[in-house]
Structures are given as C-alpha cells and as structure tokens.
C-alpha cells in the first residue's frame, strides 16, 4: 500500500526527518509512536505532500508519488486527519463534507449519508458552523471529511489527543470498524495505550529517526524500548 523509503525532510534549514522508512500494508493499522516533537506529524505531512521531503522516495500502491502535491495524494487515495484538526471553521458541518467529497470507483463509496450513519452525532449538526463544535465533534468531522474523499489509506495524526475517555473509546471502535472494511491506517500516537490496542505493527520515532519497528506483541513485551523512547 504505502512504502516510505529513507525520506529526509527540512523546515527551512532545520533537518527534521533523518532517513525515515516505514511501510503500511493493505488492511493493517500501523502506528507511529513517539514523544512530542519526535517527528510524527512531520512524517505524516511529508507523506501527504504538505512538507515534501528533500530526499527519499514514497510509493503508493506501486506508484512513485514523491513530490506529488496534497490534492493529488488525496485523489490517489490518501485521507489526511491532521493533529490540529483544522476543520473549515466558517463552513457548516455539511459544507465541510461537501467540499471534500470525491467520487469513488466502487459502489459502496462514502457520501454524506454514510458519514452521518458512521458518526450519528454529526448528522444533527449538519447546519452548525464547524468552528463552534466541541473537540470530539470536530475530530469526528475531520475523520468524516477524510473518509468522504474515499481513501484507501488513512493518515490519522493523534486522533485521540485531548479527548474525553468515552470519546476515545468510541473513536477506537470506529477505527477498528474502518480496518474491518479494508482500509489501511497509519496512526501517529503519543498515547501508547490506544496505539497498542489498535495496531498490528509499530514504529517508534525519536528525534527524527526511526528507532524501533516490530509487531505489537513484540513491543508489548519490550518494556525497555517503551521506557526508553515513550515514557515522559
């Protein structure tokens, strides 16, 4: 599905990502764990084309997509949920979804009704301005907005950050539901508990370097690695 090979990303002169490589296969949830500022969001943005890497290669479903602008990444099937949510605050919930809707090849694509069916809480808010929604509602909207672009791969950047436990639990269920429907997910998380529950495989990023990769069982047992890179 997604293959990232040795990408290096800079913000101006500062070097943020160093030879980051990772891959996501079809239908699996892969988490990218790391502390604040470790390079999780930059990795997500580099894949999406928002901060294009200077070196390295990104392939999506076998096609080389390095340097593609974000709108093309989206049309090629990557849905992006940024960590700061970035709903279109002046637009209503419905309008947020309308401008994001992309046609899909298959018959069971995502449209507004399906998003509202998936997140029933949103359907009552159709005409509400997105800027006045609560954090949890905004998070549902950003995920819905990514889904309605009909992606094959979802980039979820800290979807549970700052949300109440009950909402986190609901989102976890929804993410597993999406996985069951065949979607691949790259999940950036600080919260190990969420990541360990949801993911099939894990990468740990620290200071812009990938320090660990392995299956979730291995990571669960590897207390030392978690201690070293994840505990604050």
């Amino acid at each position: 599905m997604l293959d990232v090979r040795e990408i290096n990303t800079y913000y101006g002169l500062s070097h943020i990502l160093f030879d980051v490589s990772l891959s996501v296969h079809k239908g699996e949830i892969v988490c990218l764990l790391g502390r604040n500022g470790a390079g999780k969001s930059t990795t997500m943005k580099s894949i999406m084309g928002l901060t294009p890497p200077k070196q390295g290669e990104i392939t999506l479903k076998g096609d080389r997509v390095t340097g593609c602008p974000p709108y093309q990444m989206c049309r090629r099937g990557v849905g992006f949920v940024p960590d700061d949510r970035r709903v279109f605050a002046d637009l209503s919930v419905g309008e947020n979804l309308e401008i994001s809707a992309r046609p899909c090849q298959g018959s069971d694509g995502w449209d507004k009704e399906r998003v509202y069916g998936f997140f029933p809480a949103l359907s009552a808010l159709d005409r509400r301005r997105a800027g006045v929604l609560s954090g949890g509602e905004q998070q549902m909207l950003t995920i819905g907005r990514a889904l309605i672009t009909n992606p094959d791969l979802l980039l979820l950047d800290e979807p549970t950050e700052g949300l109440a436990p009950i909402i986190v639990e609901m989102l976890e269920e929804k993410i597993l539901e999406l996985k069951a429907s065949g979607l691949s997910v790259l999940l950036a998380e600080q919260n190990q508990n969420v990541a360990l529950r949801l993911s099939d495989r894990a990468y740990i990023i620290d200071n812009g370097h990938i320090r660990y990769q392995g299956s979730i069982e291995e990571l669960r047992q590897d207390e030392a690695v978690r201690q070293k890179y994840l505990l604050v």
Partner: protein
Amino acid sequence: MELFPSLSFSVLCIQILVGLSKATILFIVASGLTLILGVLRIPNLAHGSLYMIGAFTTYSIATAFSQSNLGFWVALLLAPLVVALIGLIMEQGLFRFLYKRDHLMMLLFTFSFTLVFADLVKLVWGSDYRSLAVPKIFQGSYLLLGMPFPRYNLFLLLLGPLFAAGLWYLTNRTLLGKISRAAAVDREMVGAVGVNVNLVYAAVFVLGCYLAGIGGALVAPTQNISQGMDHSIIIEIFLIVIIGGLGNVWGALLGAVIFGLTDAIGILVAPQFGIVFPYLAVITVLTFRPKGLLKSIW
C-alpha cells in the same frame, strides 16, 4: 432647516437615492477586490486599472455598435469578458508563481501593473477623455417626490441588490463559493481534501477582474472616461474594503453604501467640502473598529 434652506425632504431623498446608485458601482468593483484579497490574499492595486480598461473597452465596443440601439448592452456583455481575459492572462502568466511571496512584494508587483496598464490605455485610447451616452431606454428622468431622478440611476439601484444576491448565492450555495471560503482560511487543508487550489485561485481571480470590468462598463455612461479614473477608484474601493472588513463581501456592500451615502449627502450639506465626507466616515469607522465593521478574513 434654516441652516440649509435648500434641504427639503424630497431633495434629501433623491440625493440618498443618487448616493445609493453610486454605491452600486462601488460595491461591484469593491466586491471583486475583496474576493481576491480574501481568497488569494493579493492586495490587487491593479484592480482600478482593470475597471478603467473596462470603461474604455465599453466605450469602444458601444461606439462600434452605435448604429444599433444595443451598442451599450453588447458592450456591457463583452467588455467585462475582455477584462476577465486580461485577468486570466495575469493570473496564469504571473501571479500563480508568486502566491508564496509576502504581501508587500505582491503590493509592489500589482502597483507595477497600474503603471503598465495606465500606459497601455494611453497607447490604445490616447490621452483624451471619452464620453458615452446613456443607453436609449434609460435616457431622461422619472419624477420621484416631484424631483427628477435619472432613469439610468434607477437601473443602477436595481442592479445593486441583484449583484448582492448573486454574490450571496455564489459564496454560500455553490461548490466554488464554499471551497473559496475554506481556502481563504486554510489553503493547505483544502488541498489535502483533494481540491486543486490553483484552479480555484484562478477562478476567483478571474471573477474578481470580471466584476471590475462590470463596474467599468456600468460607470461609462455616467462620467467622463479618462486617464486617472483608475487612481480615484482604487483609493475609494480600498477604503471601502478596509472599513467593511478585509475579504468580506458583505463588508464591501456596507462600506460602499456608507461611502456612497456620505458622498451624496456631503455634496448636499456642504458642496465645496463634499469630497471630505466619505473620508471622515472612514476615519470615524476605523477609530472605533480598526479591523472594519464586519469580520475580516485577514
């Protein structure tokens, strides 16, 4: 009343209507400027030049078709399209490579266009002023409250709400409008949901220029078409956009009405200082609402 012996109720009413009809043209031109400012973040000083080109083109087309009664109407249709085409060439040829530059650079860049366009207009139309007759069906006046009111101004008065409604529909009900509102705030994220923002920018830029062209076409029969009309309008519409709230189409409407009304009433109250009143209004507004009356997108 003793202070202003000429100020009867009907005179005041007529003058208000004249002010509002002037506000219509100001609104149409300013809405184009504010759209470009809000969505593309370009302070386009050349907007006044496009308005001037619209007026001159209207003159040329209307004169070319002067044997038919429809000369002005053909011009009203075509001249804004000519201006829109110039806008398309500007955007695709130059502006789209410069969106990441800071505002000051853009300001200087668009200023250079005012110089280029002023000379181009001089080359094409010479430095004499031109004038265009009001189209036949709007010649003469109606009697309102016992006072004559030019028919063409009534036509302008009716156009104002029509354009306001059209722009409301465009920004609130069409996909382009919704995308533009989102792109004005978060261009990057609009790209990340699969929208080719460059196309949206081009469309909004061309639409803004088209509105400048319409304004130029509509103003052509009401005043001398001359060099220098680019400068006077750009100052007025920039002030309108600033007092209304940058990038806000309704702000442009409100600003234009304030500008048109204070101008018209100023002329009535103190003819020799008439020109001062709109600027006094601007100063007053900005003293109390430095960011403009309505929400600024900047």
